[in-house]
């Protein structure tokens, strides 16, 4: 058994290339029987070591054995009447893989070079004057981004609700007074404006109850606002 560093192989094709390289085999005339034997030894070794990589290797092992059997049988003939080498597909696959493996080495050189380069690190003090203008720009967006966005949306980036119970000392009477004070200085008050700065939901609810009280007594009147999403408070007949 040869000493082989297990983690050095990226897959069955990589391993086969290693055998070919090591033994200086002719890739166009691979000794299938011998290489199948070596390959199986390797697969057994993986199994013995209980490593969870076997799937792709076992598939290749069976392919190799299949080729080995076909080598013993009379050759099949293609449309042109030429013999088909049972190893042809394997050879093509090995060459194709080899081609990209080489390119991965090129990439690795680019990576090394790029690691010596740094980009500007701090942008905090650049002076800028921003024009107040907003539009939507969908640029370089792929369907992957779209699907990711969907996942993000439905998984809810909303932070987990934290139920903190704070006693809010606020009464309806106080809010009635608050509304009336507002209406002393302004003729019309939009409801959303009124509750804009209220952080607690309960405060908004109490404000709403307060204005219902005021409406009931005719102290204020309300009308729908132009955009239908809001309403406007005004002093009423009794106000």
């Amino acid at each position, binding site marked *: 058994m040869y000493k082989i560093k297990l983690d050095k192989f990226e897959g069955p094709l990589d391993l086969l290339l290693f055998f070919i390289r090591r033994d200086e085999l002719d890739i166009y005339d691979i000794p299938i029987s011998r290489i199948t034997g070596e390959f199986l030894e390797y697969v057994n070794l993986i199994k013995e070591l209980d490593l969870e990589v076997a799937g792709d290797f076992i598939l290749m092992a069976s392919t190799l054995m299949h080729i080995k059997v076909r080598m013993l049988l009379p050759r099949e003939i293609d449309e042109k009447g030429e013999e088909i080498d049972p190893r042809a597909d394997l050879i093509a696959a090995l060459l194709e893989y080899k081609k990209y493996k080489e390119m991965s080495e090129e990439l690795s050189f680019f990576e090394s070079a790029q690691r010596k380069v*740094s*980009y*500007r*690190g*701090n942008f*905090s*003090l*650049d*002076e*800028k*004057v*921003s*024009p107040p*203008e*907003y*539009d*939507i*720009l*969908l*640029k370089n*967006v*792929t*369907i*992957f*981004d*779209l*699907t*990711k*966005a*969907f*996942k*993000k*949306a*439905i*998984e*809810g*980036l*909303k932070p987990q609700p934290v139920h903190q119970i704070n006693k809010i000392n606020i009464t309806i009477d106080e809010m009635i007074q608050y509304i009336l004070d507002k209406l002393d200085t302004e003729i019309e008050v939009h409801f959303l404006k009124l509750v804009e700065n209220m952080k607690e939901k309960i405060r908004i609810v109490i404000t709403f109850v307060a204005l219902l009280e005021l409406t009931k007594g005719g102290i204020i009147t309300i009308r729908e606002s132009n955009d239908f*999403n809001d309403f406007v408070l005004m002093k009423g007949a009794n106000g």
Partner: protein
Amino acid sequence: MDNIYNSVIEALIFSSDDPISSQEIIRVIKGIDGEDIDISNDEVEIAVDELNKRYDEQGISFSVQKIAHGFLFATKPENAKYIGYLSSEKSKRRLSQAALETLAIIAYKQPITKPELENIRGVNADYILSVLLEKNLVTISGRAETVGRPLLYNTTDEFLKYFGLHKITDLPKPREIEDIMKDEDFLEQRQKIMMNAIEEQAQLDFDKEAENQGDNASTTE
């Protein structure tokens, strides 16, 4: 100090994520070239002044700024309006993230009503819907049979064209994405997004502070 360190100092300030102090610069130089290198804070300051002088002479549009915690590069105010325009384009892109999310929900859940949509995103969708309608990426396809008969929204052919899809069922299934992206990855992603948000806030705070300091500096000058 040798002038050769001007270039090192320049590169260090350029690439540092935070303002870098002269002590840090000295620590790096000694770390690489040995403790016996003779270089003082003053010499770093002089080097920076020399760098700035050269930028000025050459009409270069950035310079090294000194702020409380150290040195950093910044562009000069002359071109502020151009940079502002660029950064507003970037904030548009951020806004676009919200649009993309809205579009994604409509794409996968169509036909969908505005209340359903807002329920998923947790924010008002009026503005973004109006933009998406205007860009013809979504359209109104009818009304739901539910209470109030709210409008239903669908994606358009324009949408398919934009994403290079033949039909809407060509969208990757969330299942498929789930298979690709392990759940932990998403958690990680989520954390990253949250961290980004926090960082952005910190950056904003920092900017404000820097601005104030800048103001103070200019008034005391």
